[in-house]
């Protein structure tokens, strides 16, 4: 039997009091530092992993000069971009151009406020945590559009437009696939969702996981949906005109968003910090890195989709499937209100496979040529 949130095992009880280490401000300060260090360190790890992993998959070496296995390469990259000249195009909207990286970066960092690193170890255990994540993650799109608009470059503008279109479309299947998890867990708080996962929700919600992963990749513009910075078409998309520290911030946003999505996937579907033997926070980091590795893997493997195919995928494929997934989950939760039986796992996997295979036969992606 799969237990419901009420039946927590002893080992997963609240380790930290809500205001650890005592007092609101101390709690705030300590966790802000933890979050920033966590994000910066893991982003560096991500950059290293992506470059080494891609090198390995692409039959080349990847960076291997700085430090053991090239581990210091991200540091060298960071120093390089920081000492670069900060160029602003003559006709750019200077204020917007300056603000854009900040507007894009801040919300990304704020997502981590509600992500539990281990039981109760989070900045704010909001009871609407997942809603907060969905809301705040969309804000960074504003920053991206500001960058595209402010730099007075057509490539940037095209990239930014694509990004807005993609985020607006993919937000819907993203949220709908979260609701399935929320229905089973019975809570919007990320910590409660982790506590409810006596078995990871990826087993109960395979279709939801797939939809969330695809929509998440599209939302943060990872390949094969990396249309907004499509290097073979739009040069560098919205950050074509950025250099120096501002570019570094955008670079950071890109990986911090990937980290955020990987954290949310870990928390919602992979059981968050839960796992045997190792300390909880280490489990969390390991799972986050595994999710990111899958993203690197798809990036080196798949070609890029076209913009109309991207839209079609969201509206014709992900949205209906997310609704069906929601319906099925609702029925299951209604049928077994206390706890879902084991058989549900097999049933849900079968449903997911059948639906994905069936749906891909029904629709053609995109509409191809336009008569002009």
């Amino acid at each position, binding site marked *: 039997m799969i237990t419901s949130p009420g039946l927590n095992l002893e080992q997963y009880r609240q380790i930290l009091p809500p205001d650890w280490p005592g007092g609101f401000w101390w709690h705030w300060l300590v966790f802000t530092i933890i979050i920033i260090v966590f994000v910066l360190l893991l982003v560096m790890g991500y950059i290293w992993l992506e470059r080494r992993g*891609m090198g390995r*998959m692409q039959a080349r070496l990847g960076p291997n000069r700085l430090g053991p296995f090239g581990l210091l390469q991200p540091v060298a990259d960071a120093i390089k971009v920081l000492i670069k000249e900060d160029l602003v195009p003559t006709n750019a909207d200077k204020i917007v151009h300056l603000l854009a990286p900040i507007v894009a970066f801040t919300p990304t960092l704020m997502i981590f406020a509600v992500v539990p690193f281990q039981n109760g170890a989070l900045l704010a255990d909001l009871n609407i945590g997942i809603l907060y994540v969905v809301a705040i993650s969309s804000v960074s799109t504003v920053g991206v559009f500001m960058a595209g608009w402010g730099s007075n470059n057509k490539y940037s503008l095209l990239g930014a437009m694509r990004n807005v279109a993609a985020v607006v479309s993919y937000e819907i299947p993203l949220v709908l696939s979260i609701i399935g998890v929320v229905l089973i867990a019975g809570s919007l708080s990320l910590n409660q969702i982790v506590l409810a996962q006596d078995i990871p929700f990826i087993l109960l919600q395979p279709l939801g996981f797939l939809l969330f992963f695809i929509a998440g990749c599209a939302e943060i513009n990872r390949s094969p949906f990396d249309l907004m910075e499509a290097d073979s078409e739009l040069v560098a998309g919205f950050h074509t005109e950025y250099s120096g520290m501002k570019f570094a911030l955008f670079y950071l946003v890109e990986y911090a968003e990937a980290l955020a999505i990987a954290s949310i996937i870990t928390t919602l579907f992979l059981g968050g910090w839960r796992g045997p033997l190792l300390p909880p926070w280490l489990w969390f980091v390991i799972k986050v890195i595994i999710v990111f590795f899958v993203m690197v893997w798809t990036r080196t493997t798949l*070609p890029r989709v076209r913009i109309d195919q991207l839209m079609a995928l969201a509206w014709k494929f992900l949205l209906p499937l997310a609704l069906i997934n929601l319906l099925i989950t609702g029925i299951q939760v209604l049928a077994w209100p206390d706890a879902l039986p084991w058989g549900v796992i097999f049933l849900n996997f079968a449903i997911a496979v059948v639906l994905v295979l069936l749906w891909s036969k029904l629709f053609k992606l995109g509409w191809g*040529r336009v*008569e002009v």
Partner: protein
Amino acid sequence: MAIKTEPFVLNIGPVHPSTHGVFRMRATLDGEVMIDLEPVFGYLHRGVEKLAEERTYTGVIPLTDRLDYIASMTNNLAYVVAVEKLAGISVPERAEYLRVILAELQRIANHLIAVGSFLNDCGAYFTPFLYMFRERERVIDLFEMVSGQRLLYNFMRVGGFNQDVPDEFFPALEKFIRQMPRYIDEYERLLKENEILLARAKGVGILPKEVAINISASGPVLRGSGVEWDLRKVAPYSVYDRFEFDIPTGTVGDCYDRYRVRVIEMRQSLRIIEQAMKEIPAGPVKSDVPQLIRPPVGEAYGSIEAPKGELGFYLVSDGSIAPYRCHIRAPSLLNLTALREMMIGWKIQDAIIIFGSIDITMGEVDR
């Protein structure tokens, strides 16, 4: 209320990651859709044809290297074929076989780059590109073995070759022939049936058969449109009439067909090399050609099936040691003619892959 929109002009190039050199497309866009296109080229013009008029017939060969720098071996071949036609020089048997082997190796190397960069344009982030460079490297190693150069070989001479290939060439070639089919299988497994690639390339950038013939396209672009036209078969030069091989053709003339034609041509090239390796006779590699060639007054057009299409040299002689006029029929330039028709109505992303599927080298377009 309808939103008021207006088309805008986007300059793709001359410096752009996907223009394969310094090509410029002045695209008028309605949102993402391309409604007009004006190709602009000439950024790499070096006056090769004029320079050729001031050099001896042998001295032009290094210039031809710099036309299509991806495939210099076939450029050399096209030029020496034209000069031999003009001066009536015959070539020893062994040299003809060597020419076939080197030209087919060059075709493989060129198609590896063409397919790799096409898939890169599709957005497969450098993986196919680097995989194919790995194998191109081996072809280049073979070329280095024979000519000492890795990009601009300058190896063929009027009447044959200056020197025979070294002893270790044929064992190395045999090893390459044995291993290459497995690599081609690998590429096929990776992307042939990829859902995204099919969605992106199938039916995109269609060049109809009639249009392809009208613009005198050649090479994989023409064959992709379903025309079975290959100079190696229809007007055999060198010793191509002695080998067995098929001409792959597409059906629709879209980007996917052109990609398929190139991959299958690589296999056919391997077939030709295999036969040539078996049959190659021993003997001299150069016929008796004077140091300074003075062809009789007249003109000649010699053409070969280069990797990108029909590469021809039209030479006029006034009896002196330098050509009076040298014109180059560059397949890259002529294949670009229908670019506008192929691209209009498609989106920017499609335009990039249509351009990539034509496979041009700017050195040859601008000359």
